[in-house]
């Protein structure tokens, strides 16, 4: 059972990363009912931006965040104003298809620029640093950082949403966009800021992903799906639920992988489908 204990611990820590994939997705869905199919590809795009920044400036990936996050936020704002705002409306199809098209464009653009080869960010000592708890359980510094950062992101978001003027505007636009503009809010700008925020979180998640594992241009859709599964398992009601969803997904994958690596991702998908069958509102959602 010892190896199981280790698998659970590693899964919990990975869950922090999955929660970060999920939070950006849940945030824009909550504010503007937009599901961005290119979300995973933006995560991978952020990883490549970090790759360029670290290689050209010789920065540590975590320091590079100071550059990658603003870049991705600007990308997000631009995408929203230039693309998604024009596709949003009562019908979800235009925004779905536009973001699906964007997903294919980002993937193939990265393929042209960087080839299909695996890449990875080098973070030096951070990658291997760990604390040994027992013979079989050791906690890596980097995975722990993922979980801690996910918790900090959630606390930061709660503060932003409930204690600041822009958070108030996000909630007002989410409640009733028609009335919000009649009270003087520029919805298009507010949506742009929401996407910028989502992409800032995407940047953080992308850099952490890129230190942790190999990535290539085709890895985006799977990250989108992990984030989506965490959101649905967690139940769409709070970011803490989403974190719990991410952790459950991480644990299921990690435990399955400890028996047979071929089952890692499949087991996560199956867990998601079981939750959908048994509790369609998520494990922590209210029953409708």
């Amino acid at each position, binding site marked *: 059972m010892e190896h199981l204990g280790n698998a659970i611990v590693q899964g919990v820590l990975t869950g922090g990363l999955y929660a970060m994939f999920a939070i950006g997705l849940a945030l824009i869905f909550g504010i503007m009912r937009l599901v961005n199919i290119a979300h995973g590809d933006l995560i991978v795009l952020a990883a490549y931006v970090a790759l360029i920044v670290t290689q050209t400036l010789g920065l540590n990936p975590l320091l590079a965040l100071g550059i990658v996050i603003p870049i991705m936020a600007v990308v997000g704002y631009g995408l929203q104003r230039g693309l998604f705002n024009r596709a949003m409306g009562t019908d979800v199809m235009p925004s779905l298809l536009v973001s699906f*098209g964007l997903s294919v464009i980002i993937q193939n653009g990265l393929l042209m620029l960087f080839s299909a080869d695996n890449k990875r960010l080098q973070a030096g000592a951070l990658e291997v640093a760990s604390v040994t708890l027992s013979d079989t359980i050791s906690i890596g510094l980097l995975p722990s950082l993922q979980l801690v950062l996910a918790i900090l992101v959630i606390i930061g978001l709660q503060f932003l949403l409930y204690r600041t003027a822009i958070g108030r505007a996000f909630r007002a636009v989410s409640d009733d966009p028609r009335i919000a503009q009649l009270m003087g809010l520029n919805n298009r700008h507010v949506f742009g800021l929401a996407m910028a925020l989502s992409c800032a979180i995407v940047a953080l998640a992308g850099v952490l992903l890129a230190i942790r594992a190999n990535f290539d241009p085709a890895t985006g859709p799977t990250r989108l799906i992990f984030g989506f599964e965490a959101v649905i398992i967690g139940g769409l009601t709070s970011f803490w639920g989403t974190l719990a969803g991410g952790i459950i997904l991480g644990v299921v994958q990690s435990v399955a992988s400890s028996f047979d690596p071929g089952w890692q991702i499949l087991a996560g998908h199956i867990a998601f489908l079981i939750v959908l069958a048994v509790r369609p509102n998520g494990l922590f959602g209210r029953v409708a």
Partner: protein
Amino acid sequence: MASLDVRRSSWLTHLATAGGLVLTALLLSAALWASNDTLRLATDIFLYIALACLWNFLAGYAGLVSVGQQAYVGLGGYGLFALAAKADVPALYALPLLGCMAALLSVPIAKLLFRLRGAYFTIGSWVVAEVFHLGAILIVPLGGGSGMSLPIRAAQALGPTPHDRFVTTYLTALVLLLAVLTMIFVVLRSRMGLALTAIRDNEAAARSNGVNVDRVKLIIYVAAASATAMVGALIFIQKLRISPDAGFSVNDWTALIVFMVVIGGIGTFEGPIVGALIYFLLGETLATLGPVYLIILGAVAIAVMLIEPRGIWGFVRARWGLQLLPLSFLVRPSASKIEK
């Protein structure tokens, strides 16, 4: 009050019907005179048109924007290879069998996916396709991650010479395409077509007026899944080899198809056919560009979605009031006004 002349048919629909019959006869006769290369290309075109029409049936008419139809393409391909290799079922008999199997399997999948509303259904459909993809990798008897080839004896059962095999696949693909088009046409002309229009205009209003929205969507999802699996089986008869990455490829069996439909005209009967034909016309010159081609197609599809969401055919139809098939009603002031 001026009386209105309401009809489905026009001289153009009659002409199109006649033209369609002539075209069908011509295509059937091609089995007698066309070269292997022509037959092969024509088969590909038929199969892509069928996929495009089926995806449009789901997304354009039932509002089910799936990005997971590759699940059924791969299922059909793998099903055919498995039946041929393990049970010696001849390919042509396997087709209807696969259609039934896919239909049966798609019912519980639909029940599950329909719990996700709107855009979340879309990503959910992708998860299901990934389950199929990863599942196929784990099935060692079917070659695991590296896939398998169609057994030679199964290929030979289609015809003794390569030319015979091309002719058999060509005719099967043509019949399948005609069946798909007929099915969609009949559904759109039926009461269910009326229900679909109501759902598309206003789902809540359709529900409150007694349209069983979930049942209509279920029927369409199952029909599309079943037909998509049969098309998938034929696609991999053409290719003679299948692997999990090829069978369940989102780029090949969903992204390309979505772009064709969006460019041709989503939610119109003719649009997907127009989109697929354009793709093949340009394909010869542009396919060598690889990733650039997909980028261009994606960008054009986005532009169409933002500028003219009805696509090429939707634009043509609105601009000139054309329709080739008697599907919607044409309303014009009557030529002979009835005196009050």
